[in-house]
């Protein structure tokens, strides 16, 4: 499947905007991604291995947090996973 890499994380994928990875589920695809680009792990996951709260993952147009099987959701080769950090703030 294809994974879209946001601007701040491309420093860890050799500048690649998109990466093609194998995997039968979202979790497997992500594991392959951080296996290929190990420096991504600390930016995506906490030291305890949980996905960082500000990292949003969208399978095509769906937030995986709201998919019944979440990271165990099955994926096909033509699916797209988008990593998109949150943007917020205020005075």
């Amino acid at each position, binding site marked *: 499947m294809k994974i879209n890499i946001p601007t701040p994380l491309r420093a860890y994928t050799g500048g690649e905007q998109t990466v093609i990875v194998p995997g039968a589920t979202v979790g497997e695809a992500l594991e392959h991604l951080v296996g290929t680009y190990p420096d991504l792990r600390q930016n995506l996951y906490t030291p305890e291995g949980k996905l960082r709260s*500000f990292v949003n993952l969208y399978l095509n147009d769906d937030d995986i947090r709201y998919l019944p099987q979440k990271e165990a959701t099955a994926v096909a080769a033509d699916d797209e996973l988008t990593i998109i950090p949150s943007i917020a*703030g205020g*005075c």
Partner: protein
Amino acid sequence: MLHIKFTDYETLRSHGEETYPHECCGVLLGTASPDGNQVHTTVRAGNTRTDRAHDRYNIAPEELIRIQRQARKLGLDIVGFYHSHPDCPAQWSKTDFDEAHWIGCSYLITRVDHGRATITNSFLLTGSDEEDKKFIDQPIEIAVSSIEDEQEKGLA
């Protein structure tokens, strides 16, 4: 350095005036280079923090993905974000820092006093991860188009 055209600079500042007393927010599309971030266009975004829009902003990830797709079609990247501080300094706050995760991107903040945009500052988020990130002051270079440039674009 953040490079931006005068028209884009004024567009994002006037957005803050329009949404006053609420915060506005938007995205800077352009290219990154060793010389800094070059803004090619700005995209307005909705502030989803309707519960306290006077001092908070949030861009829905779905909207961010749509803007990112739009950028790719134009051959551009997300190089920064902007928002306003109604009646507050044009300086990043603790909330801005805690919620900043786009390392390498520019964060523009415009102070809007009583509905009028005053100071605009840019801060570059640097570092390698959440543990060592920091904001540094980023000079802004504003390019004023010449009449010849406008004529070339068919705008004048």
